[in-house]
């Protein structure tokens, strides 16, 4: 990747939180360049999910800046970000349970109804298992299946940037591997991807670069491979099991 390429997403010294007076992010800076798969790992309470939510306009930013291709998007509401090509796959409450799978996917492209048919064909092509069940109520799906629907919905707008909050959470090993491989494939198709993950090992195995968040700041950064082999990162965040 050329060094001079300016980032697609740039987060500078972000301060954000939920309760008044309590900051979860304490000056966090990350960036994602065109086509990169960026991993965000770190302990509980480090601010990983808060970072994604702040980028997506769901958490109040108290200081710092977020830009998309150089444009300031700090504090922009989610629907405006979707218009600009940013998609988000939340960890929980990520489908409309009373709607069918097909209706959930439709919701993803409500801003551009004309492109619905072609996008539906593309997305359903990615998720074989959903193809036969489009009329099934999303509320009756298992956690892993809902993940797929949520991801599919985010992809309906053909986003240039995809944010994923713990795509492997609560999934069995085989489903986790499928989810990671799918994210990798989507990224390889040209979507700049930022993925928060608790399964640090798997995340680092597939990402280009990663940040280790700790206590609301970016504590370490490097390529996925470098961090996987870094003794400090291993002892603080990865653990030695499964190496």
């Amino acid at each position, binding site marked *: 990747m050329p060094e001079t390429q300016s980032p697609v997403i740039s987060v500078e010294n972000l301060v954000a939180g939920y309760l008044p007076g309590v900051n979860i992010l304490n000056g966090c800076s990350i960036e994602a360049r065109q086509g990169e798969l960026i991993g965000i790992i*770190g*302990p*509980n*309470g480090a601010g990983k999910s808060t970072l994604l939510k702040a980028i997506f306009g769901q958490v109040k930013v108290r200081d710092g800046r977020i830009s998309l291709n150089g444009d300031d998007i700090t504090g922009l509401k989610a629907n405006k970000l979707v218009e600009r090509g940013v998609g988000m796959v939340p960890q929980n409450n990520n489908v409309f349970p009373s709607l069918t799978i097909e209706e959930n996917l439709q919701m993803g492209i409500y801003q551009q109804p004309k492109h619905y048919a072609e996008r539906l064909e593309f997305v359903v092509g990615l998720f074989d298992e959903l193809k036969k069940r489009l009329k099934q109520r999303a509320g009756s799906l*298992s*956690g*892993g299946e809902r993940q797929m629907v949520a991801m599919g919905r985010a992809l309906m707008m053909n986003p240039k940037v995809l944010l994923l909050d713990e795509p492997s*959470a*609560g*999934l*069995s*090993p*085989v*489903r*986790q*591997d*499928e989810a*990671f*491989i799918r994210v*990798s*494939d989507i990224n*390889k198709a040209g979507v700049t991807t930022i993925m928060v993950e*608790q399964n*640090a*090992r*798997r995340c680092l*195995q*597939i990402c280009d670069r990663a940040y280790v968040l700790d206590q609301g700041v970016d504590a370490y950064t490097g390529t*996925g*491979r470098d961090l996987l082999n870094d003794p400090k990162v291993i*002892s*603080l*965040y*990865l*653990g*030695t*099991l*499964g*190496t």
Partner: protein
Amino acid sequence: MSSKSSADKVVKTTGLHIGTIEPGVKKVDPIITMDHVHRQFGGLTAVDVEHLEIPRGAITALIGPNGAGKTTLFNLLTGFDKPDTGEWTFDGRNIAGVPAFRLAQMGQVRTFQLTKALGLLTVLENMKLGSKNQKGEHFLTSLFPFLWKAQDDEIAEKAMRLLTKFKLDTKKDDFAASLSGGQRKLLEMARALMSEPELVMLDEPMAGVNPALTESLLEHILDLKTEGMTVLFVEHDMHMVSHIADWVVVLAEGKVVAEGPPDEVMKNPAVIDAYLGSHQDTDLGTVTGRIPKISE
């Protein structure tokens, strides 16, 4: 590799079963036995276990895909849910339908996947709640401190010993709600030990816990076995399971589809297909083509 040396330190318990290993195989010394346990929710059969025995004094892992019925089985065993049919025994005593609090008094405790610390009580107060047979919990005796003060002090001492072991002693006067997710997991486990149970049932104890903290939690679970307790835990992390489990039970669609020592179960093709996946020990970087295979 450091993982190999830590694996060497873990002494696995063998010889737990009688006869050929297959679902429902009898155990030499079972602490729990289950027969014809059936639980249905509307049209969905959540649990359908013909026969299952959990070995005493060992660490058993319960694994399986989401929706396999693991938490439902836990809830049935621990009195949080009633089965449609079925019988089971704990320590030889018939306990089907016995409520949770009574089971705790009998020596069986469980933790929860979504931790249930009492947020507005301090860490120490949470711990003291876990103790059994507290004299001060009866209306009349509570009016006379001299009747329960000494016991209360003993309980506080025991709580502090456990908190120190779990490195939560400095937090004893903090509200439980102020603990991080991982610290709440530790508190949940420490509190479960206050009643000196025979059987500790842990529901996804590592879920959402930083991998580096996981290792110290594993040490605590191994300590339980050293102190003579039986452990049954639900987990998705197979590295953790192979590291500490003596026995593994695989649940799928409510039935026991496989059981045995971790190494054997993880080589079972049906288990690989339904649950583990074929990339279990592979770097996904090679699978996704992000790093050349030759360099591995």
